[in-house]
Every structure is written in C-alpha cells, then in structure tokens.
C-alpha cells in the first residue's frame, strides 16, 4: 500500500494534523490508531475545561474529541482502528525517500505502507512506580492516575476506596476530584517538589474545593500490604529532594495513585533514528515541526508534554499544514536553521530552531520553565540583543509558556545567528 501521508495516532494531535493536511490539499492520507476508537486519552477525560481557547466554551474531553472527529469524518479522512504500528523505517532510493510504516490489525493482518511523509502523534505515557523506584511491597492497588481514570470513567469501576495520590500532575488532581465524587476518600496528595506540577485552576477546583490537602515537598517512602495496599508511608524531603528521617507518617489507604510526570512515547521515532531532545524526550524539530528526518513531522504530547489540549490541536494543525507543503514541494529545504537557545530557567523550546525564510508569518514558540518565578519577565534576544520582554506575575513548571516570532522582524536582522529565550527576575 502506498500513501502520501500517514499519521501515527488518532488522538487530538493526529486528528488536528490530519484535518489540516486534508484542508491543505492532501487527499491520500491515513490515520493509524491503536485503540478501538479515535480521540485518544480524551475519551477518558470526562471532566470539562477543554476547548476554552479553541472553541471559547468549556467542553468535556469526549466532546472536544468529538468536534474533531466530526470534522474529520465530514472531510472523508480515512482511518484504521485497532491498528498498531509495529515498525517505522526509511527506504532511500534515487531521489526518493519513503517511510515504511509496518502495521497490523485483526482484519488485515500485517503489512507495510509506503508513505511519502509521516506525522508522529503517538502521545505519551505516565511514569510508573517502577521508574520512580519507590520501595516497599508490590501489592494490588497501585495505579497510575490515568489507569485509575480509565477504570472509573470508561468501565464504571472503582479501583479503591481510600486513596493517597503521589504527584500533583493534572491527571492526579483531576482524579482526586473524580474519586471523591464517585465515593472514595482521598486522603491527601503528596508532591515531591516545593510546587505543584499541575495547573493552578486544577489545584483550586480539584483539591481546595474538596478539602483535600496538598503536601508539598513530600514523597512516598514505603508501601505496605502484601496482597492489597494497606498503607503508605510519606515523608518530608529536604532541598535535595531526599526524605528527611523522622518525618515519616503512615497513612492508611488501599490505593496509591501516581501522577508523577508524563513521558513522550517515542519508541517508533527512535527506531527510525530521529534526533531527540533529551529535555523534552521528544524529537528535536524545526519551525515546520519537522524532525531531522526529511518528511517526518511530530506534534502533540509525543513532541513535548502539553498542559492544554487546545495547544496540542494548534500545534498539530501546523504540523499537518507543513507536511502538506512538503508533499506539494512547497517546503524549501531548510538551509538557515537558526537555533533557539533556552537559557536561564527556560528548559527547552519547541521548535528548537527556526529558518526565517521557511517560517510562516507568525511562529509560536512554546516552552516550560524549570522553577516557580514571581514577577519575572520572559525575554527574547536576537543575536544577543533583547527584542522583547514580557512581564509575568507567576511562571510555573506546570504551565506552558509561549513567545511569538515574526517573520518580518527576523528577516530584517542582518546576519541572524541565534535567538535566545530567557527568564529575567530583576524586573
């Protein structure tokens, strides 16, 4: 089978990318989705708050996904469900570069699609108890927050009655509220860092409104119970994040939920040999959201973990558009990629570089900061000269930030060498 464009993943990123590509004139495309339905993890996010930026209204996760699915169906974009991409590789022949996407599903078996371009939109996974290396027993009752969310919201089943949550990522906060509403007792949320990893609005609406304590600078140091969780021991941590002896407190519970960070699922990207950004754990991309492999684009949480799905959709639409331009021969070869340096509290930027000639009129650059900053400014410099500075009351790792680069402005810079994004505190 041959396709112009294969989009790996039918979650919010894949859907928006496919719609944009189709609208930009790519007709020979295919979405490959491993789950039984389109929409990805939005399907289990039954709380509201999605779409404020995109649709100016508050939708639930399935409603937000539904808008894109309807649009996709109305555009007759083909898709395959229950279909796993098991291998991704490149085939180079004279003047041609093809991506080989090997897929399998129950109906059609195992086969390879030859694609001219690929958009990576596989999303992310949750950090597990094992990766956190929490000591103790290994009983039932330890779930990542997303796994518990699936049981509660998709299966209508409760994974526990008395809950402790480790990590204040957004899914953990959302699940603190959901478990409470469904009749469980959420005893506390412990967070290793001295600040929350989630959105401020979620702390207010999911913890404060229900009287659930958030214990900052705390972690789980032991798990008790041989068959089922019986208790966890939490302790305060010092400035090096090490538990402080003597601060241990045993909390009786039958369930431990983990919401300790998300990891982009880049096994396929890595099998293709795509250059990765060690900070985001996603591919390193330029302004066209193109990886270092020609014709391979990335968007959504596989690229970097987002805070709001609205930004995923926006980013993915750009990837779809740029992939279309590539397929139509309208995307020039990148020749003058100018690196965007992330310094002084800015952990990374996506994109990581920009070509002033290739870029669209306005390029949004997104990033996260490494700490909580108050009354600071986001400063953009070009060739070492500050070109913009925007004051912010609070900058926090849980919220994504952005700057905007304008093509007209960059084109005016003589001998453009580097762009720097930094946090300035003495403002």
């Amino acid at each position, binding site marked *: 089978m041959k396709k112009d464009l294969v989009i790996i993943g039918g979650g919010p990123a894949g859907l928006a990318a496919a719609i944009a590509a189709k609208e930009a004139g790519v007709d020979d495309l295919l979405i490959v989705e491993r789950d039984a339905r389109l929409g990805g993890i939005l399907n289990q996010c039954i709380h509201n708050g999605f779409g404020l930026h995109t649709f100016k209204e508050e939708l639930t996760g399935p409603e937000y996904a539904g808008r894109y699915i309807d649009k996709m169906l109305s555009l007759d974009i083909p898709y395959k469900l229950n279909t796993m991409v098991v291998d991704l590789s490149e085939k180079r022949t004279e003047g041609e570069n093809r991506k080989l996407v090997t897929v399998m599903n129950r109906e059609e078996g195992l086969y390879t699609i030859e694609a001219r371009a690929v958009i990576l939109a596989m999303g992310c996974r949750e950090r597990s108890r*094992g990766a956190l290396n929490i000591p103790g027993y290994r009983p039932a009752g330890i779930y990542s927050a997303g*796994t518990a969310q699936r049981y509660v919201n998709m299966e209508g089943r409760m994974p526990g009655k008395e809950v402790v949550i480790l990590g204040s990522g957004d899914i953990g906060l959302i699940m603190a509220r959901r478990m409470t509403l469904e*009749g469980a007792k959420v005893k506390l949320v412990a967070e290793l860092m001295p600040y929350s990893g989630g959105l401020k609005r979620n702390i207010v609406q999911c913890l404060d409104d229900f009287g659930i304590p958030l214990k900052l600078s705390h972690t789980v140091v032991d798990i008790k119970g041989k068959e089922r969780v019986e208790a966890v021991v939490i302790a305060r941590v010092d400035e090096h994040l090490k538990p402080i002896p003597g601060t241990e407190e045993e909390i009786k519970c039958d369930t431990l939920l983990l919401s300790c960070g998300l990891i982009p699922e880049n096994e396929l990207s890595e099998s293709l040999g795509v250059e990765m950004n060690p900070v985001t754990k996603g591919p390193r991309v330029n302004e066209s959201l193109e990886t270092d492999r020609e014709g391979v684009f990335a968007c959504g949480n596989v690229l970097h973990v987002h805070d709001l799905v609205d930004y995923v959709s926006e980013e993915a639409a750009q990837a779809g558009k740029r992939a279309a331009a590539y397929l139509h021969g309208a995307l020039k070869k990148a020749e003058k990629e100018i690196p965007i340096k992330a310094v002084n509290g800015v952990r990374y930027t996506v994109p990581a570089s920009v070509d002033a000639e290739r870029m669209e009129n306005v390029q949004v650059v997104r990033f996260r900061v490494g700490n909580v900053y108050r009354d600071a400014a986001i400063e953009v410099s070009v060739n070492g000269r500050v070109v913009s500075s925007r004051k912010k009351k609070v900058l926090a790792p849980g919220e994504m930030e952005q700057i905007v680069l304008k093509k007209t402005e960059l084109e005016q810079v003589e001998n453009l060498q580097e762009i720097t994004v930094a946090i300035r505190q003495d403002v």
Partner: protein
Amino acid sequence: MVDVVVIGAGVTGCAIARELAKYEYKVTVLERASDVCEGTSKANSGIVHAGYDAHPGTLKAKLNVEGNRMMEALSEELDFPFKRNGSLVLCFDDEDRPKLQKLYEQGLENGVKELRIIEKDELKQLEPNISDNAVAALYAPAGGIVCPFGLTVALAENAAVNGVDFRLNTEVQNIEKTNGGYRVATNHGVLESRVVINAAGVYADRFHNMVSEEKIHIIPRKGEYCLMDKKVGGFVSRTVFQLPTIYGKGVLVTPTVHGNLLAGPTAVDVEDCEAVNTTREGLDDVLKRAALSVSHFPAGQVITSFAGLRAHEEKGDFIIGQPEDAPGFFDAAGIESPGLTCAPALGRYLAKQILEYLPAQAKKDFIGTRKGIPSMALAGPEERAKLIEENPLYANVVCRCELVTEGEIMDAIHRPLGATTLDGVKRRTRAGMGRCQAGFCSPKTVEILARELDRDMAEISKNDPGSEFLTGYDKDDIEE
C-alpha cells in the same frame, strides 16, 4: 492414596514433578499460591551458573555443573528462553588475584569447562563498558541466562500434560507419618501419600521438622534487584559478577534473556518468610554496587525493582533426600543459588532416589516436549504473518511496550495450568513487563481474563486472593 505428594510448585518442585511424570506414579503437587512460580523462583537473577562458586564435593557443586549442561537441551525440549552468554567475575585489586585463582581452581575441580582468567585488555575488548578499575576477571563461557518463569512454567505444564495433578491455592497445614506413608493435611482436605517431597522453599524447614527429629533451619535471605529498560539491555552482554571485596559480597550486572538489564541482589537475612518488600537502602545499595562493575551505569533507566527470598539453610549446602528417621519423606531443602541452574539435575537426582524407594515402570506414553506460547515480539516478519493468518488475535496488540497480543494472552489462559491472574499472564507472555509497567494494558488484560474465565472483572486479581484490582462500582459508597 497417591504415590507422591510434592509440596511447592517452584522451579524445584516442578522439575521433580516433571521427572516423576516419566514413571507410572500418581503425583500431586500442592501449591499454596494461586499459580506456579510464585515464591523464590519468581524473584532471582535468572542466571544459569557455570559452577565455579560452590565448594567441590558439595551437592551445590555437583548439581550446578550437571544442571548447566542439561539446560540447553531442556530449553529446546520445553521451549523456554535460555542463552549461553558467558559470565565474568571481576577482580578490582591485584591483591585479590589469589581469590580469583582459587575460584578458577575450584571451577576446574567442579568440572567447569573452558574456564580461564583474562586480563584487563581482553576484558575491555569483551565488555567495553566494564569499569576501568577491574584488573582481571575469571571468564566462564559456560555461564548462561534463563527466564525463571519460562523454565518453571514449562516444567509445570509438561508435568501436567503427563498426568501430574497440580492443586493451587492449597496450603499444607500438617504432615503425619502413617503406616504406608504420610497423611498430608491441607486447607482443602487431607491426602494420603506413599512419598512426600518437600520443595517448599523458605518454608521447607517447617515441613521437614514436622516429620524428623534432625531439625533444620532455613533463613530467608532477601535479595533486592533493579531491572532496567531494554534500551540499555546491551550495556553488557555477559553476566558480570564481582569478587567479594571488603565492601561486601558484590552484586551482578547482567542482560536478561529478554533483553533488559538487571542488577542485584543484596543479601540480608530476614525473619519474615513473606518479606518480599524492597527497601530504600537495598535499592540504593544495588545501584551503588552495580556502578562499581561498569562505567556510567544507567541507573536512570530503572523500570521496576523487586525482592526475592533465598532459602538459605544454616549448614550451607542443599539438603536433598530422606532424613534417617523419616523414610519416604524426601527433602529438597535449602535450595538457594544456584538452585535455578540445578533444578533439572536436582529433579533427576531426587527421582533416582525415589525410584529406589518406590520402584515404578517408565511411562510408555510420556510426552517429552512442549511448545511455548509463540511470541510476536520475537517472531520475524514471516512468522508474524503466519501467526496472524492462523489466529487473527495475534494482530491485536494488548501490551504495546512488549508487543504482546490478545492471541498470546488467550493461549496463556487456555493452555494446561493456564494463567488465572494478571501476574500469571504477565509471567507467561510478558504483558505488563515493559517500560510502562502495565499502565496501559492491565485494564485490557483484566477484561480478557474476566471474559475468558467467565468471571466478573472484580474477581480478577494480581496474584493471590485479596489482590483483586477493583473494589466496586462508581458511586457504591455514596450515602443517599
């Protein structure tokens, strides 16, 4: 009345049961847990030792070398993963060379083949990531790695196919001598048997001491491990041990037969036979000691950690055979390292003793081979296509990290002694053993188990009763 009762369905009990299945015996295996391979056999290094560690003349030495030699053929007969990857014992200090030499000579005396001491240059050539502090090593090409679950399940399945009766969730409570043998009381009734085999791991002293005045004492010796992502599975290609130093016994760093990297174990005596919890100190110790063997040890790639208990008998060697005052009661006690390696040889060794005690004819229709669950992850493109053609469920991926399909999970559930728990599926198929640690696949696997076993999802457990995942329906506990 049965001929033989085996207490314990770990690797030792299953190896003995499979050996006895070759004869016209009525054999019943009693296992306290909900599955085979639930104790010491499930949490160890998965190493097929070459045989230089044990003192010459001990049972450990004899059975180790024999077991090592048997493993390859057995892995083909019973279709479980085994690889002869070779092992190295690192020496970090020239002053310790005599210890390395002693190990070498001990190996020769035990009958280990191809053993030699190699110097730093060759060592670095073999294993580029070895620490620069290593000055020499004992190299044993005969060392290997095996899947401990694969081996145990294969032995058990093959025994079951040949008529051995496995009774799971069945705990032995008491053993009494009778005229013709023993009366074994369990939580599910009483069994009369001519012969009892005690392969009860850390509980073996309890059963031995019920029938014999020659008391034994098993000390559970905890070992903690860290398992690393397959990304770093090739960090070393051989099993790398350390010579004991003033800092302690040392830990090993090894690839697993499935391509992960494993580091451990610690060695701490505990009192509780159920204390399979990991500890902060233990895990930190594993990572610290592992970093002595290799440069830039990838500690950040840990995907899970676990602890197991070795059944250490205080006199040091395996206890195999009949106590003088309890004829017909056969111990396989104190089976700590290299017990996994020894299992096939131990089964044969003990079966010979039992045949002398209670002669029996060889079974004419014994089936000596067994086919494992085909693995999509390991299959090549053609084999994959063929598997899917035979059963389309082999194209439905359930565990994305380890590429385990619904077809494999169905096979694991429906084969003899099939999986009934999530851990049972995991150990037979590897579903949930990957980097997300069952985050995505556990709800699906629970659903498949419930469907195939015709149970409600709430009845599906991780392993033993009490480890069910679900506690009720949404809003059950909301007061009106």
